[in-house]
C-alpha cells in the first residue's frame, strides 16, 4: 500500500510541476512580450520597458520561471495590476463563493445520481430503468448555463421567489448565502449528475450479475443489504472514477454559472482580469483551479486504496 501511495504522490508532484510549467509557458512565453499585452497597443515603448523591468521580464526565462514557482510554493502569486493587492489574497477572497457553490453542487450530484443509478440497475429493462435513462440523457444534453437561465426565468422572472443573481454574503447569516447559491448549485449539480447516473447504473449492473450477489440473495439476505453492502461497495471504483472526473468538470462549470448568476467567485475574477489584461491574476487563478483538479484526481487515486483491498495488499 505504501508503495502505491508513494508512486501516486510522486506522480502528483510531477504533474503539479508540469501544470505550473504549462501556465507559465502560455502566459509568459507564447505571447512573446507580456509587457506589450498588459500595456496594450496605445502604450509607449518607455512604459513597456519600465513594466518589463518592474516585472522582471528582462531576466532569462528559466530564472523567471524558478522565481515564479518558488513564490507560488510560498503562496506568493504576484500582485494584481488591476487591484494592486496580492493575487493570493484576491483568490482567497473569492473562495467563500466558489467553494460552497462547488460543494453544494457536488452534494446534489451525488445524492441524486447514486439512488437514481441504483434504482435504474435494480429495475433493469423495466419502465423505471428506461425513465431514469431518458432523464439522464436529457440531463447530459442540457448545458448547465442554459438550465441556469431557465431556472432564473421560472423562479425569478415568473414566480419572483428569488433574485436573478448576486451573492448575499455570509455575514448576514447562513441562509441568505445558501439561498444565493441554491439555483446555481441546482443547475450545476443536477445536470452533472446525469453522467454519474449512467456510470452508477452500468457499474451496479455488472456487480449484480456476480455469483457472490446471487449467493447472498440465495442465503436470504434482504434486498437492501444485497444492494448496499454486497453490490454498491464493489461497484464503487468506476463510480468514484467518474465522480472524480465530474468534480473537475463541476469546478469548470462553476466558472460559467458564476457569470449566469452574477456571483463574485473565481470565474468572474478571471474573466474581469482578462478584460483588464491583469496577467498575474489570470495566471494565479488558472494555476489554482488546475492544481485543484489535479489534486481531486490524486485524491481519487488514494480513495482506491480504501475501496479495493487488492490495491492495498498489492
Amino acid at each position: 500500500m505504501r508503495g502505491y501511495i508513494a508512486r501516486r504522490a510522486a506522480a502528483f508532484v510531477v504533474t503539479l510541476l508540469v501544470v505550473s510549467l504549462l501556465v507559465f509557458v502560455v502566459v509568459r512565453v507564447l505571447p512573446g512580450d507580456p509587457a506589450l499585452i498588459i500595456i496594450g497597443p496605445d502604450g509607449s515603448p518607455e512604459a513597456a520597458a519600465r513594466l518589463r523591468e518592474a516585472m522582471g521580464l528582462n531576466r532569462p526565462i528559466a530564472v523567471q520561471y524558478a522565481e515564479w514557482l518558488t513564490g507560488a510554493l510560498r503562496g506568493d502569486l504576484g500582485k494584481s495590476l488591476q487591484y494592486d493587492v496580492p493575487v493570493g489574497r484576491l483568490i482567497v477572497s473569492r473562495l467563500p463563493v466558489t467553494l460552497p457553490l462547488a460543494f453544494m453542487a457536488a452534494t446534489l450530484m451525488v445524492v441524486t445520481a447514486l439512488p437514481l443509478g441504483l434504482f435504474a440497475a435494480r429495475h433493469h429493462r423495466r419502465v423505471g430503468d428506461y425513465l431514469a435513462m431518458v432523464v439522464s440523457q436529457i440531463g447530459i444534453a442540457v448545458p448547465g448555463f442554459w438550465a441556469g437561465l431557465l431556472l432564473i426565468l421560472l423562479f425569478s422572472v415568473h414566480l419572483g421567489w428569488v433574485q436573478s443573481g448576486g451573492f448575499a454574503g455570509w455575514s448576514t447569516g447562513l441562509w441568505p448565502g445558501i439561498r444565493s447559491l441554491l439555483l446555481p448549485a441546482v443547475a450545476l449539480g443536477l445536470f452533472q449528475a446525469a453522467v454519474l447516473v449512467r456510470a452508477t447504473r452500468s457499474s451496479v449492473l455488472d456487480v449484480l450479475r456476480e455469483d457472490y450477489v446471487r449467493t447472498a440473495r440465495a442465503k436470504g439476505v434482504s434486498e437492501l443489504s444485497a444492494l448496499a453492502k454486497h453490490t454498491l461497495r464493489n461497484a464503487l471504483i468506476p463510480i468514484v472514477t467518474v465522480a472524480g472526473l465530474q468534480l473537475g468538470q463541476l469546478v469548470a462549470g462553476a466558472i460559467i454559472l458564476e457569470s449566469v448568476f452574477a456571483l463574485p467567485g473565481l470565474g468572474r475574477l478571471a474573466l474581469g482580469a482578462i478584460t483588464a489584461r491583469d496577467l498575474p491574476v489570470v495566471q494565479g487563478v488558472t494555476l489554482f483551479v488546475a492544481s485543484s483538479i489535479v489534486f481531486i484526481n490524486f485524491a481519487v487515486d488514494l480513495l482506491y486504496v480504501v475501496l479495493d483491498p487488492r490495491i492495498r495488499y498489492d
Partner: protein
Amino acid sequence: MGAAITALLLATAALSLVYTPRDPLKMSITGRLQGPSGPHPFGTDQYGRDVLSRVMRGTVTSIAVGVIAVGIGAALGMLIGILSGYAGGALDEGFMRLVDAIQGFPAILSALLFAAVFTPGIALSMVAIGIAFVPAFARLTRAGFLELREREFVVAARALGAPDRRLIARHILPNTLPPLIVQATTSFPVAILAEAGLAYLGLGTQPPNPSWGLMLREAQNFLSMNPWFAVFPGGAIALTVLGLNLLGDGLRDLLDPKAA
C-alpha cells in the same frame, strides 16, 4: 433516433449556407424582441434580427468547432499515445505526467488562459476545446499500443524486419482505431456544449456572428421582455447534443461492444 436528429442537424447546417428565412445579420429597429410569429417563427433578438435564421446559421458554427476541436484533440492525443505506448519507459512516464497535467485544464480554463494573451474568438475556442480532449485520446491510444505491441502478429512482423514506422502504421494503429472512433463521436457533442459555454462567456465566437452560446449570452439581459429568445438557442443545443449522444451510443454498441 440519434441518426435522425444528426441528419436534421447536418441538413440544417447545409441549408443555412445557401438559404435562411431572413438575413441572420440584418437588424430592424422596429422589430426588436418580438415573440414567435408568422414572419419570425422563433421571434427576434434585441437588434430585431431573426432568431430562427441565427439558430440555423449557428449550426454551422457548432459543427465547425466540433469537428476541428475533436480533430485537434485526436491528432495531438494519438501522437502522444503512440509515442508513449510504443516507446514505453521514461518517455511513457513523462508523457503520462503531461497528460495528467493537461487533464487539469478543462476547455474553459484553457480558454481563460489563452484569452489572457490572445484575442478571444472561434479559433481560440477550437484550440482550447481540442486540448481538453487530448488526455482521453492519448490514454486510449497508449492502452491499445501497450496491449498490441507484444502480440504475435506484431512480434512476427518485427522479426521479419519491419521498421518501427511500418509496425506502427500498418500493424498496430489500425487495430486501435475502433475505440478512438467511438471516443471521437462521444467527444463531438461535448465540444458543441463547450463551444456554447465559451461563446456565452465571451471567449469564443464573437458578435455579430451567430453562435448558440452567444445568443444565450445576449438573451440573458432580456429574459423578462422576451423569454423565447433564450429558449430556442438553448433548445437547439440540447436537441443537437441529445441526437449526437444517442448516435454515439449506437456507434459504440456497433464498434466497441466491450465498452457498451
